């Protein structure tokens, strides 16, 4: 591989993405875009109640309606046991999953699916939903996490006895589990502190807000085999979940990942997919089910809202001597929330001897949470980064310098356990300090805030297949749905490794029948883990190419080297041969041993932790409480940017989502426990006129475990914005906002209380 020694030809550049043409012409096929002959329309009946017992469901009138071809309820699902089992890399309680997809016994949130129909058109399907009679006994509900933890709270699950406590409680509660992380002795640490700051915060449940609603097209054959087309971050995960829920063999279910219109973690589980399969099996025809936007908000995963508390002790020169946090995360109606990573990340960016974090995983009558960019981390790190800002202001220390004094480095024992290898946190702080943004002047009612963020990044199982065509072009198949340009990155890494033109590599996302198991797109793993599989397959192809050249030249394979896309004799002793290109060797493949291809199947280990530091300027309208983000700069250690423009794009997009989380996004429930804002009108994601350009600075401290140094990008940028915005608001108006979102009414009320 020449690229490891010399100049990189493709890595770090920004070639036009291979799937780009289809996406700018409308030709790309997303979840809802597939039509099959005889296809029916599937629709789901959802609970209008936050918490109710299902006394009975009568589907007979719906079934009798002309044009209705199937009606299903939870009775049509395979029976599940209440146990946590491995599904790919994650643990899944299939009983919960099954009950979330079609409620059994009780409905646990507004929007909980109860039944589904397949009909010849959508008007008939809607009419059929109205004809399904569900007799509910409405039960008391609970929405807020603290209220759900109260001793007299309505209990969602009679069999939920808090895990992680000894002895296990004998009464059920809404606390699924408690998590404890502790190093050192926080009491002794706080005793050494010159300054201790503690503060409580609340963060709202926020939705991933992908623009494409969930969609699935299922087609079941009479012999029990089925095909499923859906927009998902992990079609192998979909296959695993659906096969289990329907009692199918994995090999009988072929899942194709459509183009996916955003996911951010929210498309890592299943909602409609098993329902479409059930309906198709029952109707004997293909079924397409597509969520409305309202259904997306009511019934697909937001991330946790939370109550948090952080306490940090420092010496007067700014050295952190102890950190403590209590985190209470909403899980939604079923266990579990991302409390574990939340607890692990809270103090991870800092070298602190004494840390104690206590986490609670709490169910309430809300939709089950799903992953959302760096699951759990933005919530806990928001508390810590906000308290740090307060400490910097109280000590009169520059907030970046305070962080530099305490930044984790190579060799630091992370508060959550491991010892860090090479990491770039300090580099991001230095780059932020040096950025012209950090020293630009501010006007009246304007303020600047900074905050940092940490995410583990992950590896996991990935497969890749490289098929060399007779003309020397290659098809590269991976099992990672491409959510933000990853096919471009895969092609770059293959082309770089092979020393060929990136345009000669055509990357595709293969279906579950065409490739080995590949864990889902998430956790910032694809460029790292699937990238390693691609590099591995490319190296195998190089081996084959050398072997074929050796055969053609009739010399030993050891006498052939691969350089800049050509097989060459290793030296003068190897003989005099003209270098042969990949194309020339491929053209003779039939005569030299058959088609050239390679498969690699790996479980990538050694993901490199990612760190980022953001700078945010705001202006506050003192009379309305409106906050304008004036300028935003995001610095991040990416290890190595494979496709530079898409790395920037990940950082910009994550920052924008974090700004939305900070300022305007929230799930609003009414007194009956119904979601009051299930649409883009009142669930307010940032629009183009809300944001400034988002400047990015890419720091590259190579991850030694990846051939090109990749760490992963997508998760980290959503972590700092909430605190960066809050810290900027505090700098502008001298008011510490503790309740997210920091919407205008809250800011005006805080200003009025403060003055």
């Amino acid at each position, binding site marked *: 591989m020449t690229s490891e020694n010399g100049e990189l030809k493709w890595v770090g550049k920004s070639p036009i993405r291979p799937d780009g043409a289809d996406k*700018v*012409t409308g030709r790309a096929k997303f979840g809802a875009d597939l039509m099959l002959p005889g296809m029916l329309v599937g629709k789901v009946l959802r609970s209008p109640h936050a918490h109710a017992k299902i006394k009975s469901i009568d589907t007979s009138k719906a079934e009798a309606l002309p044009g209705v071809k199937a009606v299903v309820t939870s009775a049509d699902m395979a029976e599940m046991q209440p146990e946590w089992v491995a599904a790919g890399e994650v643990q899944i309680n299939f009983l919960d999953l099954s009950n979330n997809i079609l409620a059994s016994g009780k409905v646990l949130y507004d929007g909980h699916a109860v039944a589904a129909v397949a009909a010849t058109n959508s008007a008939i399907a809607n009419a059929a939903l109205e004809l399904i009679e569900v007799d509910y006994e409405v039960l008391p509900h609970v929405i807020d996490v603290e209220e759900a933890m109260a001793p007299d709270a309505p209990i969602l699950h009679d069999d939920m006895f808090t895990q992680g406590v000894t002895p296990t409680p004998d009464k059920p509660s809404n606390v699924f589990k408690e998590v404890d992380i502790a190093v050192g002795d926080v009491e002794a640490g706080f005793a050494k502190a010159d300054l201790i700051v503690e503060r409580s915060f609340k963060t709202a449940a926020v939705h991933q807000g992908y623009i494409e609603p969930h969609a699935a097209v299922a087609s079941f054959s009479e012999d029990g085999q089925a095909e499923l087309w859906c927009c998902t971050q992990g079609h192998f995960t979909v296959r695993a979940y659906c096969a289990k829920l329907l009692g199918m063999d994995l090999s009988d279910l072929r899942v194709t990942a459509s183009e996916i219109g955003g996911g951010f973690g929210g498309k890592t589980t299943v909602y409609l997919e098993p329902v479409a399969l059930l309906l198709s099996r029952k109707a004997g025809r293909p079924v397409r089910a597509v969520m409305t*936007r309202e259904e997306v908000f009511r019934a697909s995963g937001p991330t946790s809202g939370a109550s948090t508390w952080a306490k940090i002790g420092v010496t007067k020169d700014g050295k952190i001597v102890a950190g403590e946090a209590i985190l209470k995360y909403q899980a939604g109606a079923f266990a579990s929330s991302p409390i574990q990573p939340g607890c692990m990340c809270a103090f991870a960016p800092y070298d602190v001897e004494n840390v104690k974090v206590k986490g609670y995983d709490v169910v309430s009558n809300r939709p089950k949470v799903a992953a959302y960019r760096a699951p759990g981390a933005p919530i806990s790190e928001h508390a810590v980064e906000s308290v740090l800002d307060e400490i910097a202001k109280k000590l009169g220390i520059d907030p970046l310098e305070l962080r530099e004094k305490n930044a984790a480095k190579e060799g630091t024992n992370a508060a959550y356990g491991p010892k860090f290898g090479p990491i770039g946190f300090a580099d991001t702080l230095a780059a932020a300090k040096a950025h012209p943004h950090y020293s630009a002047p501010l006007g009246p009612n304007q303020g600047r805030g900074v905050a940092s963020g940490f995410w583990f990044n992950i590896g996991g199982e990935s497969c890749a297949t490289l098929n060399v065509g007779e003309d020397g072009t290659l098809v590269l198949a991976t099992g990672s749905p491409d959510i933000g340009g990853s096919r471009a990155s895969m092609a770059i890494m293959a082309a770089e490794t092979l020393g060929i033109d990136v345009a000669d590599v055509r990357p595709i996302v293969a279906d579950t029948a065409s490739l080995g198991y590949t864990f889902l797109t998430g956790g910032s793993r694809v460029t790292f883990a699937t990238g390693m599989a691609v590099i591995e397959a490319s190296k195998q192809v190089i081996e084959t190419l050398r072997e074929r050249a050796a055969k053609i030249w009739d010399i030993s394979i050891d006498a052939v080297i691969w350089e800049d896309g050509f097989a060459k004799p290793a030296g003068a002793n190897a003989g005099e041969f003209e270098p042969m290109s990949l194309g020339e060797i491929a053209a003779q493949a039939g005569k030299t041993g058959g088609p050239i291809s390679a498969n690699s199947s790996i479980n990538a280990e050694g993901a490199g932790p990612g760190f980022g530091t953001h700078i945010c300027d705001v202006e506050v309208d003192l009379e309305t409480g409106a906050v304008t983000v004036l300028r935003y700069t995001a610095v991040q250690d990416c290890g190595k940017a494979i496709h530079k423009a898409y790395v920037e794009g990940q950082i910009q997009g994550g*920052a924008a989502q974090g700004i939305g989380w900070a300022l305007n996004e929230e799930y609003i429930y009414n007194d009956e426990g119904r979601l009051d804002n299930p*649409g883009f009108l009142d669930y307010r994601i940032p629009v183009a006129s809300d*944001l400034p350009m988002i400047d990015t600075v890419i720091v590259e401290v190579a991850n030694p475990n990846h051939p090109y140094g990749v760490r992963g990008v997508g998760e980290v940028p959503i972590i700092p914005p909430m605190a960066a915005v809050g810290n900027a608001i505090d700098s502008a108006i001298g008011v510490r906002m503790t309740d997210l979102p920091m919407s205008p009414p809250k800011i005006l009320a805080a200003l009025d209380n403060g003055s």
Partner: protein
Amino acid sequence: MAKIHVSTTVNGEPTEFLCEPQQTLLDVLRDELRLTGSKEGCATGDCGACSVTLYGRLICSCLALGAEAEGHEIETIEGMADGDSFHPLQQKFLEHAALQCGICTPGFLVAAKSLLERNSDPSETEVRYWLAGNLCRCTGYDKIIRAVLECAADMRGA
């Protein structure tokens, strides 16, 4: 339920279709005419993924009835490229990596084209406000705005 017969022009082609009274123009485009480049992100006019032009005006096709198209001209994303060559905006979006997942891209392109037809030299603020009805959750808008501004500059220079 009697269907309505509608004669219209779609991307320059005379087109006829039958629709039910309550079918939106978006439903007709996607389900009857199989032009699935216009996307449904919300069905309430809040996301812009279904943007098309009707009688020369930029609209959300989810907020018009199919029947309203009678006698009018409709332009969709499918009509934007000229044969096998991209519209300059399409080219610029590709060069600037102004799309990630791509679901909002058709709507942004149709909306941006409509802007540049009216204003060949928009300011950043004008572009941002014109496109405020097109939601993008992936990009933070940065590269989209840059692509539109640079395209406008190129088209003025050309």
